[in-house]
């Protein structure tokens, strides 16, 4: 993977390289400790004559996210003369052994090495946008420069803005923020708009539940985004650009600040960039975590210092955007694609992908798959390949039920869509959207009504409250979904839900409201039987909705070990000790699942609640 990039980085082959993932995921898994431990170990071992005598230098390298977050902390060790080796789930305690065995004794520590899953995870990916992520030091512009960094910018300044736009058009780049509008066309509009002052905004207000593509890109390879911003600004004729990034991303912000400073120092930002006469400044604007601020007009309002609320379009930002000036807004990933297009040429770029969706797409793969993490796949790859090859299949050998693509605006696709190719148009046809890259895999234990309710709850919390259908319509939808999950649904609810979904979609002001019913509509389309089971049979087929299930102890399997009794927070379990079999009192049980996971013999089962049986009898 990304070997080309790695080769470019290695300027001195006598250098020992240790790369540690220090992205947010890595840090959460303890990467800082691992990092410090390596530094300490190398320091103390350096005193040893062995290393010194060999005149070996070393460098502990901090890299950004490499994608396979499930295996964090991931550490790559490259000792000159030896094959590169990756260690998974490294803790500080393992470090002395790795240093001693691998670096000093040159014997990789087999028991800590990554396994087959690691390779499968990378094999079907096509890491282009993420090529440097997890490889270079994001706080050192020299790493970026050593890997062709800012050469696209130099080329862009040579060929001129029109040609840049042509290239982006020819490459067929479409917006990676979700809707897939052709980027080159958007740039051309903005370039053609009247006005001396124009702005470019990089939308890094990533808010979909489970999504972390933009964060990873900014943390791991901030210069690639900056380079895209500068080229884009040049193309549309803007001298000022903003990066609107949520304040919940402190590391991304920190690294952007460093990158901007370094780019300025090297003359890639500021006045008269590379002697071209072109000036460009980039400012970081921190958002406060409102999901709706990812919507471009709301985002601009927020930058202007107002409440982030969408405005009607037209006028489109390209005509009248930030402070009334022509403005172009692109998502982080879109901009990170730009240097690739300019440097390698549109033709080469367009070789990857389908007819109408070119290039690759980054997804944050989460949910019930074995390999969760950040992935980059060629457009046209099937859902099955993502779930089973890259994702390594479903956890605990459960059955695949659905994949949710596109976040709260997206949809849930079931088994029948496993062969659907990932491209803008196929996804829309199937009832989902490409979205920004959230990709949540669900197994048989996931209730699709509950999923629809979850997303509706999210939307309702995040609606700006401006337009009536989104503010009240989604509230009423949420109320119906909650009712159904609680087992209180009535037959008319389905009809009402369908009607509300349709009308909210038809009347809402912005993309958030217009797509809010998507999770409901797609689950309705593919999993209607689950809705019907909840309403008619008062039964949750996935056994997830708490009001519709109960826990029952299988007496034969119960060993009266009392573990369940101890863990139960609501004192719902009788017996369970001194030889008496455990018995769960349904009225006290809150279905928290604590006993379920504690029981060593798996004696506790989830079954339909009595109400279901009653209905069935009828």
């Amino acid at each position, binding site marked *: 993977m990304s070997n080309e990039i790695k080769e470019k980085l290695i300027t001195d082959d006598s250098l020992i390289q240790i790369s540690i993932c220090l992205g947010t995921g890595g840090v959460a898994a303890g990467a800082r400790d691992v990092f410090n431990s390596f530094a300490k170990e190398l320091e103390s071992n350096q005193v040893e004559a062995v290393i010194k005598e060999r005149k070996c230098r070393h460098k502990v390298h901090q890299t950004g996210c490499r994608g396979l977050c499930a295996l964090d902390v991931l550490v790559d060790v490259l000792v000159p003369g030896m094959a590169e080796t990756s260690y998974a789930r490294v803790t500080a305690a393992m470090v002395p052994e790795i240093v001693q065995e691998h670096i000093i004794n040159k014997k990789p520590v087999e028991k800590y090495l990554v396994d087959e899953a690691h390779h499968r995870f990378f094999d079907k990916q096509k890491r282009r946008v993420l090529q440097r992520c997890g490889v270079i030091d994001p706080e050192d512009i020299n790493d970026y420069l050593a890997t062709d960094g800012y050469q696209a910018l130099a080329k862009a300044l040579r060929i001129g803005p029109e040609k840049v736009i042509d290239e982006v058009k020819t490459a067929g780049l479409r917006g990676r923020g979700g809707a897939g509008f052709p980027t080159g066309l958007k740039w051309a509009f903005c370039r053609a708009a009247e006005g001396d002052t124009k702005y470019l905004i990089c939308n890094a207000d990533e808010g979909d539940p489970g999504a972390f593509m933009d964060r990873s890109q900014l943390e791991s390879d901030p210069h690639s985004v900056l380079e895209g911003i500068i080229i884009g600004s040049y193309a549309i004729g803007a001298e000022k650009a903003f990066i609107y990034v949520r304040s919940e991303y402190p590391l991304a912000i920190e690294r952007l600040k460093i990158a901007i400073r370094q780019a300025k120092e090297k003359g890639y930002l500021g006045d008269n960039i590379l002697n071209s006469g072109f000036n460009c400044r980039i400012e970081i604007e921190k958002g406060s975590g409102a999901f709706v601020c990812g919507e471009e007009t709301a985002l601009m309002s927020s930058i202007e210092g107002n409440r982030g609320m969408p405005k*009607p379009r037209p006028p489109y930002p390209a005509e009248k955007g930030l402070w009334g000036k022509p403005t172009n807004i692109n998502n982080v990933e879109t901009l990170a694609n730009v240097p690739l297009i300019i440097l390698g040429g549109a033709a080469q770029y367009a070789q990857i992908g389908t007819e109408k969706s070119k290039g690759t797409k980054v997804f944050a793969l989460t949910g019930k798959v074995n390999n969760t993490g950040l992935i980059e796949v060629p457009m046209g790859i099937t859902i099955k390949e993502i779930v089973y090859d890259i994702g390594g299949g479903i956890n605990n050998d459960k059955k695949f039920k659905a994949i949710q693509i596109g976040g709260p605006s997206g949809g849930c696709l079931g088994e029948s869509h496993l062969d659907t190719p990932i491209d803008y148009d196929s996804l829309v046809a199937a009832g989902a959207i490409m979205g920004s890259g959230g990709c949540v895999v669900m197994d048989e234990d996931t209730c699709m009504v509950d999923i629809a309710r979850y997303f509706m709850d999210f939307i309702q919390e995040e609606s*700006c*409250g401006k*337009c009536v259908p989104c503010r*009240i319509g989604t509230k009423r939808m949420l109320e119906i979904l909650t009712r159904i999950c609680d087992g209180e649904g009535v037959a008319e609810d389905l009809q009402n839900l369908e009607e509300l979904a349709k009308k909210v979609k038809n*009347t*809402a002001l912005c993309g958030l409201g217009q797509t809010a019913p998507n999770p409901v509509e797609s689950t309705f389309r593919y999993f209607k039987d689950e809705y019907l089971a909840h309403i008619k049979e008062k039964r949750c087929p996935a056994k997830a909705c708490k009001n519709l299930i109960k826990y029952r102890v299988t007496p034969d399997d119960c060993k009266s070990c009392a573990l369940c009794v101890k863990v139960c927070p609501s004192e719902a379990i009788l017996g369970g000790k001194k030889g008496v079999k455990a018995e769960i009192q349904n009225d006290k049980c809150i279905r928290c699942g604590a006993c379920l996971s504690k029981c060593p013999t798996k004696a506790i089962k989830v079954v339909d609640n009595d109400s279901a049986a009653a209905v069935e009898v009828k």
Partner: protein
Amino acid sequence: MMKEISITIDGRQVTAAAGSTILAVAKRENIHIPHLCHESRLEPFGACRICIVEVKGARGLQPDCHTAIKEGMEIVTDSENLREHRKFLLELLLSDHPHDCMTCDANTSCKLQTYAYEYGIDLNRYGGETHPFEKVDDINKLIERDPAKCILCGRCVRICDEVVGARAIDFVNRGFKANISAPYNVSLLDTTCELCGQCVSTCPTGALTEKMAKGKGWEADFKKVRTTCPYCGVGCVFDLNVDRNGKIVKVTSEVGSVPNNGNLCVKGRFSYDFVQHPDRLKKPMIKKNGKHVEVEWDEAIAFVADKLTAIKEKYGPDSLGFVSSCRSTNEANYVMQKLARAVFGTNNIDQCARTCHAPTVAGLAMAFGSGAMTNSISEISNVDLAFVIGSNPTEAHPVIGMEMKKAMRNGAQVIVCDPRKTWMAKHADLHLPVQPGSDVPLMNAMMNVIITEDLHDKEFVENRTEDFAELKDMVLRWTPERAAEICKVPADDIRKAARMYARADKAAIFYTLGLTEHICGTDNVRSTANLALLTGHIGRESTGVNPLRGQNNVQGGCDMGAGPTGYHGYQKLSDPAAVEKFSKAYGVALPTNIGYTITDMVEKAAEGELKALYIMGEDHLMSEPNIKQVEKAFENLELLIVQDIFFCETAPMADVVLPAASFAEKDGTFTNSERRVQRIRKAIEPIGESRPDWEIVCDIAKQTGYDKMNYQSASEVWDEIAELSPIFKGISYERIEKVGLQWPCFDKDHCGTKFLHEGSFTRGKGKFHALDYRPPAEEPDADYPFYLTTGRILYHYNVGTMTLRSVGSAQKVPECFCEISTADAEKLGLKNGDEVKVTTRRGELIVKASVGDRVKEGRLWMPFHFPKTPANLLTNDAFDNITRTAEYKVCSARISKP
């Protein structure tokens, strides 16, 4: 002009300007589409979605309020599908709205109610959770907020931001919990709210209502009487809402009204309650044995007529003085001057413009030939640059202030020249906080820059002006550096101002009393004229020299001949033809000697030459400078007649007090700042036995035996005014029934004059005046080290008789204060709100200190509205050399802890 394109709407083929919204076309075609969040004063918002229409080929339904038409567009505004979607939206709204129309103040005026009925809403279609909001417990006495009835259309938020610029309220929270609130839900009194009630005026439901109108009736119950605001010179048109008991319940203003487009300020909307205040004078009074005793009208009229006649016979006609009122109607002013001239044979007639804009009338007449605002209020929003000097429009002329804010939103640049950091100064592109009284050097230096940098309009100067050489000679001596020393602003800022003003395409000057109330007031005014002539910023739309007149009818007071130098319509005593014309019309030989100004009358009374003074609607013991001196002078009078709606501060000295009817109780006309003659109408019966001013005056005339003042109505008075003056000739009550006309209006076919001096000036060529600096009469010294300036605040009006009896204004600002800079306050150990003693050579007052950055170090500022602490006890009785207007804006003072 925008290109015309053709579209189809509901099957009709129509054409409209490209860029128009579907809404605009539908409105023009009288097609009814429901709207909740749309309001023509506001930017499209697109929140309610109820105005959706079908556009062939478009994805989804399109809101008409923000969808622009395109060539060939096919639009359907009503269909089963649309009705179903609109119904859906209404049912959603009503699922979270109390169904209590029968006890709601907005009943019959609520748009939600109207549409619910129209669309046959099922109130319980969706059910579900509703907001637990309770009414906001806000101690303010004017505006009630009931968030449970709020549909979040955002009109209140937007009008507060886009039109008023106060930004006191905004959306808070998200999703279903979203609502509208002041910051932290505090009282509006503690926010930037100006209590203008614009939010109430635009609220489509009962979420925002007027506390004073609560429970007093529904829209459909009120008689709406269209009239003109009695406060500042903007002349906002509004409707007095009168209930079945003949009481005024509230004030509303129709969007689209001229000149204010439905906008009102706190005084216009809420300070009508003075009209029905118990303190109103209800019966005439004569002082008997030192006490005022109520008498019948017959006795009072006879007393006044007889006494005036007797004094005239004893001391001659010029022993009488008449003071007319810029707060009363044109008709009252006209008959008052006729009473003085025709009945009592004296030109000793003046009105309160003497205390404010007399230098405007004189100065602009000298330069242009007409002493009035050259351009119109409607042109303000299109200026490219506003040079605001000595004017605080957002407080003194709030609705003109709103137009300026609109101009700023449209991208206009603003230069503010004001010693204080007013709202406008804070938001200006350039603020010049000049030393009080240094306006002539400032403007001379600006012209110095304009000429030396060759920025003047040479063609205009050549063709349309005279005396340029004299001007040039003078201003070349005033380099920015020289002026900077006097003005206390950087020379480069003066240069910047000059360049900005000269280079703008449409630059307009706006000024108020900050220029006129100086010993060099007329010089200041002529300096503004010089600037406009030099740059050619006059005689075109959205340019000009625009004095903003301070009182509702101060323009009319001047126009009606209620001044010592001429007849109405600016017909001069110095013109024998005019004297002859009026002598003939009035049926008596009229006096030809120039009469006394108000200032003269006070002095002549002090000297014992003036024996009787008839004051209509003026309050000298509040409004004249150095009040103590005025009081002494009045003690010499043999007869003092005060005619007012309240027992004002001057009334205790009066021998006769005559109760006048307020603006709400009579017919007539006011002329606003932009020369627009507008109707006022009788909405309620006069309070007590009060009577319209013109009737009282005419009765006095009749009592003396004069028979040419027997008018049956105000309209009849107006007809005589029009008949005898060319500039009013084309104006009649009939023609101004709906919208007022701007003079000059020469005949029945003339549509009035939007802006003056197009092509040529009233006097032919515009005249430059070379003017040199004359320092204020009193400047700070060791004993009195501060500059003291006085002025108006947003919540009150002039002598305070009206607004201090108005609950909203009185609650917001109950008492006088003195603005002091933080630095000066620290030196004295004063904190904001502490009492401070302000002393001048003429008196002292103890008021609250308002400490902050509005005034600079070494400067003080006080409002003049409060009878208990009258600022004019302190002001200097030094006067403009030409018009004898007092220098209210500068005197020296000291401050101390009381």
